[in-house]
């Protein structure tokens, strides 16, 4: 009997690590199916909690077609409103208002993409960094100080403020890396704790009259509006709210792609992520790699911070972070930690944010989108569920087939 237990224990451990790798690797088909399944179950929520549907089903015996069509209409109303609010409004009276929803999606997506790239970078180094929230908050402190307390010419002021956000966030990220490298502290614990520290720190700075508190402000932690010279300007004039943050997002994506796929740094990052002991034997200082990866990752979060802090109207409070730090984790997972994937995932989540107002107007609770988001994460985190639902083959078969092919080739040779 004992042998059975022991034999069983080992595969279980292997299974846990292989599932973790599967999650971080992010197979595109599986992710797409997770999103689809998330929407399907979200639709069920919409239907089940809708009053008119409940009423129609109560009369199912007398009017079954009514019951079914109410279900259909509810789903169509809900997701239709999401579409109208986030992509294109066909009912609009002018071209500008018709495409405004999509520009809103872009505006919401930009910080998600930037912070998402940061988290994605650490995933590929094999670190589970959930500290984007704290890094954004510290970045905000930097950019807000530059934007409200210093005077500089236009454009330069904005660039310095962005730079300040990036540097502050990088320092915050580096703390995690140094603690991990020097003491072996686990990055998950450290980043969670530093998120709280950053929140308190930022609140404290917002209360300090000499630092960030608005002029003449009292007890509430709130800053002044950033100086006009430091603001991220509007991209397409006053008709759209879309601002220069989008440009930073595009540049971030290009830089991330180059860094991870083309540069020698990215090569070493990926090497450490896949197999730290082989990296060590190849002369790479794994601990230093962790420090750099966490710092650069936090730099991306800093850009997200600048995007938020320099586009706000009417001063900023801690709520400016808007859950971006946490959504970034999902965006990175959903995007398979690849540049292109993160862009798509960021756009999806940006659309959720842009479309939730229209959904509310249409009488559907936008919290359904929260459920969809959570379900997507759940399905990505539990690959076997998705495989079971869609009857996909287990991973590994592909590998064995390839080995077999190699073997066949060997025979031919």
């Amino acid at each position: 009997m004992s042998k059975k237990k022991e034999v069983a224990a080992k595969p279980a451990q292997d299974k846990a690590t292989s599932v973790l790798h599967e999650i971080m690797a992010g197979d595109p088909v599986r992710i797409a199916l997770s999103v689809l399944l998330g929407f399907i179950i979200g639709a069920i929520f919409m239907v089940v909690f809708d009053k008119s549907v409940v009423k129609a089903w109560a009369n199912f015996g007398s009017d079954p077609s009514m019951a079914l069509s109410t279900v259909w209409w509810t789903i169509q109303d809900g997701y239709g409103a999401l579409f109208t609010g986030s992509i294109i409004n066909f009912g609009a009276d002018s071209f500008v208002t018709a495409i405004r929803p999509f520009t809103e999606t872009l505006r919401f997506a930009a910080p998600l993409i930037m912070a998402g790239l940061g988290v994605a970078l650490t995933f590929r180094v094999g670190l589970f960094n959930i500290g984007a929230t704290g890094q954004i908050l510290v970045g905000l402190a930097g950019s807000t100080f530059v934007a409200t307390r210093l005077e500089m010419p236009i454009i330069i002021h904005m660039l310095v403020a962005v730079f300040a956000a990036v540097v502050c966030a990088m320092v915050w990220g580096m703390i995690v890396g140094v603690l991990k490298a020097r003491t072996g502290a686990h990055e998950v614990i450290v980043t969670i704790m530093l998120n709280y520290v950053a929140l308190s720190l930022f609140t404290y700075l917002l209360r300090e009259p000499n630092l960030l508190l608005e002029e003449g402000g009292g007890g509430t932690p709130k800053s002044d509006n950033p100086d006009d010279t430091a603001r991220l300007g509007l991209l397409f004039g006053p008709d759209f709210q879309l601002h220069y943050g989008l440009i930073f997002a595009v540049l971030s994506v290009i830089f991330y792609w180059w860094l991870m796929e083309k540069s020698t740094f990215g090569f070493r990052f990926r090497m450490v992520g896949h197999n730290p002991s082989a990296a060590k034997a190849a002369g790479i200082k794994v601990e230093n790699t962790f420090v750099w990866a966490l710092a650069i990752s936090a730099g991306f979060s800093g850009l997200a911070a600048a995007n938020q802090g320099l586009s706000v109207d009417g001063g900023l409070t801690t709520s400016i972070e808007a859950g971006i730090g946490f959504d970034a984790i999902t965006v990175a997972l959903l995007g398979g930690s690849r540049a292109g994937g993160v862009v798509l995932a960021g756009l999806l989540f940006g659309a959720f944010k842009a479309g939730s107002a229209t959904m509310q107007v249409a009488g559907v609770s936008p919290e359904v989108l929260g459920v969809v988001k959570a379900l997507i994460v759940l399905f990505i985190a539990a690959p076997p569920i998705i495989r079971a639902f869609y009857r996909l083959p287990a991973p590994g078969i592909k590998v064995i087939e390839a080995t077999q092919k190699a073997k066949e080739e060997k025979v031919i040779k």
Partner: protein
Amino acid sequence: MKLELRNITKRFGTLVANDKISLTLAPGEILSLLGENGAGKSTLMNVLYGLLQPDEGQILLDDKAVKFSGPGEAMASGIGMVHQHFMLIPVFTVAENVVLGNEPTGKVGNLDLEAARKLVKEISDRFGFDIDPDARVQDLPVGAQQRVEIIKSLARDAKILVLDEPTAVLTPQETDELMDIMRGLSKNGTSIIFITHKLREVQKVADRIIVIRQGKVVSEASPKATAGELASLMVGREVDLDTKKKAAKLGAETLVVKNLTVLDDRNQQMVDGISFSVNDGEILAIAGVQGNGQTELAEAILGLRKIHSGSITVAGKDLTKSNVRQVLEAGVGYIPEDRKKDGLVGEFTIAENLMLDGSFGKPFAKGVQIDFAKRDEIASKLIQEFDIRTPSAGTFAKQLSGGNQQKVVVAREMSRDLRVLIASQPTRGVDVGSIEFIHEQIVAARDAGKTVVIISTELDEVLALADRIAVMYRGRIVGIVDAKTTREKLGKMMAGIAA
């Protein structure tokens, strides 16, 4: 008990791991399953032990068909298995380990250790195992731990015992003792399936030999067959078991290790003040049973492990405090004992693996960007030169067979500016064909005037390659002897008895 496997077929995807394998095992017979790594031996035994379900075929015990859904059922039917890696709890005593999961209990459900002790004592005496039931497993030598594993199976009335590569961790003397134990068991009616790829052992102990190749039984051989014949059956073509090498042309003394002491992660002294030197154009083989400090020695030379005291110099350059990158740049090449852990990134392509330590500069990098054209050019050149059998340079390392993975490592380490080559278990888990090739490459490096250190637990390999042999035991060098030393003498040295 009589065992028969009838047309066992097991597929993984499109790979047929076992293809209609049939065999019989008479009571008290020692059957040897001979085959290369990946031939399907382990799959077959996992089917027998209930860990895998066969796609086709039957298992018959005493002519009755049986089905095992797990190892528990297989054990209950009298099948025992001793794995290559022991499944023992180090801090428990022998008696506790033996009864674990099957504990004799007293009236109120308390553990009856006295009964457990008696059981161990009885089995140990019956077969002449000489095992103290109260010894802690962690204090026992490896050979004795293996006997505890065997007692575990016998305590559950195993009539058929499967031994999976049992000699990999043993000294030659312990191997001989195991052979005696196997004969004793078989005399008492226990049948044994003995899985191995070491020809010498098969010839010594087996009643019958079944050779498996690519999932099929290719033939039955008699233990009287020569090693060459058996190897040819295993590989499917003529094999030359002797590595040809010319007399060594010694050059300057290049690698000098002085009074080196190295601690392991638990601060145990694993290398205990050893000194040796190796010349250009020479192969020094470090022989010894696994776990006697060889791994730590290699890691210390490479800079992977901190040196406690002593010094290491390469061509006059002090590398005692150098990090891995500095050591590599000083011209040290390293073939690690565990290629999957330390030598390769499985999720990287062959081309990427060939530049693993080359990302800091030319020829693989232009500034901070990878020179992809150059990388692919070098990759296709090395794939040719080192006979790496792969569909393309873009194939992931984890998709390659063990032998081809090892060739990737060898190609990388030998293709750069090399002064000293440290090769740890260079052919472990590698097919016979690749062993031949890798040995040739190592000898070629030596003939080109490189300094070579081979660390190997396989005496065959040591004797095939070495110009001089240093034997390690418990962190010390028992002696450095020339390559003509007999197996018996080396075996004694491996057990710590100085020459």
